[in-house]
């Protein structure tokens, strides 16, 4: 067990280092070095430029810059945004919270819905209901996230009358926390539905195929032979055994959900890390773009690690392989 944990920690660390290195290389390959890029940027003051030069050692050789960059990044110092003129890490933390408010409920909801319809679909393998569920999930999986979001916006404008941009109404003085929360919920509805539907398709298919795979195993056939009821086999044997594959595949799906969140946030102007990427691209705000990229990639890698470790705890077989 200990060596399994150690191995996972090591590979996670390697991935994170790879992400940071990739970011370093990419943002150094920008046309013009970072110093001249900043000097050309009239939004930065002279003091800020001097501070950045010192802080990131931008007048030192490249390999030295790399280590200074790594050291700074591990301390949480990701530079100063060209556009907001604030430290990148402060902006990111605020935005990350907003992203999680949207991402966690919709991913959980997608998994839950996926387990229900995936199970129904596997149970009624190749019957009409299975075909309806699998083709619906295929279509949902294919729909471009931002297009689905756009469809909901169009629907909302004509029928639903739900807010389509942002997290709260501008300039509203709330009477109580409940009012504020209600406003948040009404703004959250459409992005939440979009993100849930987009991830739901793949979860359903993952769960269905895991169940179908397991139902051909000998111990399931043996249970049928012993005369257990279908319901009992399904609930006690199939669902229990399928929980592990679901866990590991959910970890892979976290990446998909995050990608979906980036596009969903952009369409609905939800002030999360995803929308921040869009704004950073539009404003050519490279430090902010780099910071958003680092935060998103590292979060996904960490989520994968947690899933791997959980898997190791639950299933002793993977520890040795």
């Amino acid at each position, binding site marked *: 067990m200990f060596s399994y944990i150690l191995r996972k920690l090591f590979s996670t660390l390697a991935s994170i280092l790879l992400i940071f290195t990739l970011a370093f290389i990419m943002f150094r390959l920008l046309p013009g070095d970072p110093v001249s890029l900043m000097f050309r940027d009239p939004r930065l003051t002279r003091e800020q430029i001097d501070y950045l030069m010192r802080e990131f050692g931008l007048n030192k050789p490249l390999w030295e810059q790399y280590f200074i960059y790594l050291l700074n990044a591990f301390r949480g110092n990701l530079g100063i945004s060209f556009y907001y003129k604030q430290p990148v890490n402060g902006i990111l933390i605020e935005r990350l919270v907003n992203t999680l408010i949207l991402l966690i409920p919709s991913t959980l909801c997608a998994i839950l819905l996926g387990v229900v319809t995936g199970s129904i679909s596997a149970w009624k393998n190749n019957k009409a209901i299975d075909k309806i569920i699998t083709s619906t999930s*295929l279509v949902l999986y294919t729909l471009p996230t931002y297009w689905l979001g756009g469809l909901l916006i169009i629907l909302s404008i004509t029928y639903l009358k739900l807010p389509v941009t942002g997290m709260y109404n501008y300039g509203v003085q709330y009477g109580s926390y409940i009012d504020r929360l209600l406003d948040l919920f009404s703004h959250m509805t459409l992005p939440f539905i979009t993100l849930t539907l987009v991830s739901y398709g793949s979860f359903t298919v993952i769960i269905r195929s895991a169940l179908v795979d397991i139902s051909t195993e000998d111990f399931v056939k043996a249970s049928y032979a012993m005369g257990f009821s279908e319901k009992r086999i399904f609930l006690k044997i199939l669902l229990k055994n399928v929980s592990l594959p679901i866990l590991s595949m959910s970890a892979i799906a976290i990446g998909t959900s995050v990608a979906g969140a980036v596009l969903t946030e952009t369409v609905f102007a939800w002030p999360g890390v995803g929308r921040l990427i869009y704004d950073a691209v539009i404003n050519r705000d490279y430090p902010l773009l780099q910071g958003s990229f680092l935060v998103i990639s590292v979060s996904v890698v960490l989520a994968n690690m947690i899933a791997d470790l959980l898997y190791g705890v639950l299933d002793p077989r993977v520890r040795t392989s």
Partner: protein
Amino acid sequence: MRKANNSYYKSIAYIIKGNSDMKAGLAITALFVILALTAPYIAPYGVYDTDTSSILKPPSIKHLLGTDEMGRDLLSLNLYALKSTLLVGLLSAILASIIGLLMGIISGYYNGLIDWVISRVVDFLIAIPAIVLMIVMGSIFASGILSVILIIALLSWAPIARVIRSIVLSVKELPFVQAAKALGASDLRIIRKHIFPSVIPMTLALTILSIPNAIFSYAALVFMGVGSVEELNLGTILYYAYVSGSLASGKWWYFIPPGFLLVMLSLALMMTGRALERELNPRLKGEQHEL
């Protein structure tokens, strides 16, 4: 080599004949290709024809899919947009497959350090959300359509390499390959004569399956304002529908058709690719609706 190839073509023709999923998928794809190629002849208006008397007008007899904020005919724009969407999808997918094929063969055939390195890179590329990396790379490097194709390909070969590697691992152990090795055939010869032919059909299926991903990535990139938004494709129509505020004011005829075309095209390609993959991988054959 030639003989082996002939039998592939024959078997592929045979597969198409007896597979309704693939027939339907190929038919829809072919329709899209024809529309894309004949756009200049069948489009009622040109790309630069602006009609200032009808700006953001809903569909009518004159403009079947309405007009955009410059008074251009949206049906014509959508038709013209197909070509570059298809082209970028196809080229990125082919390039990604070539990289994936080479990496998969190298990684599967040679054990040891090189396999370990490639496998870790593949794990990494599969784990991180590719679109985020594409956006970042695109906003730094992308100046035109070629750099976008390159970026999409560089970030989408990993799943292909993984499948190819697993096939190579099993083919490598087959008796005739071992025999060739024992007879002193060089690595290059074994790869060319035995490994390569055995992975080509699956590579074809995976290439077809990569096209929808590439098309979506391209559209998503353009929608996020990365790459060149001047270049007309389905993604740019969606982008302009969004940034011009037409989406927020409910101009559905501007936003719905390009996305619908994207979805139809992808579904058709996925149907074709999945059907081919099922034929090539007998393990999947029982599954009628594997995604």
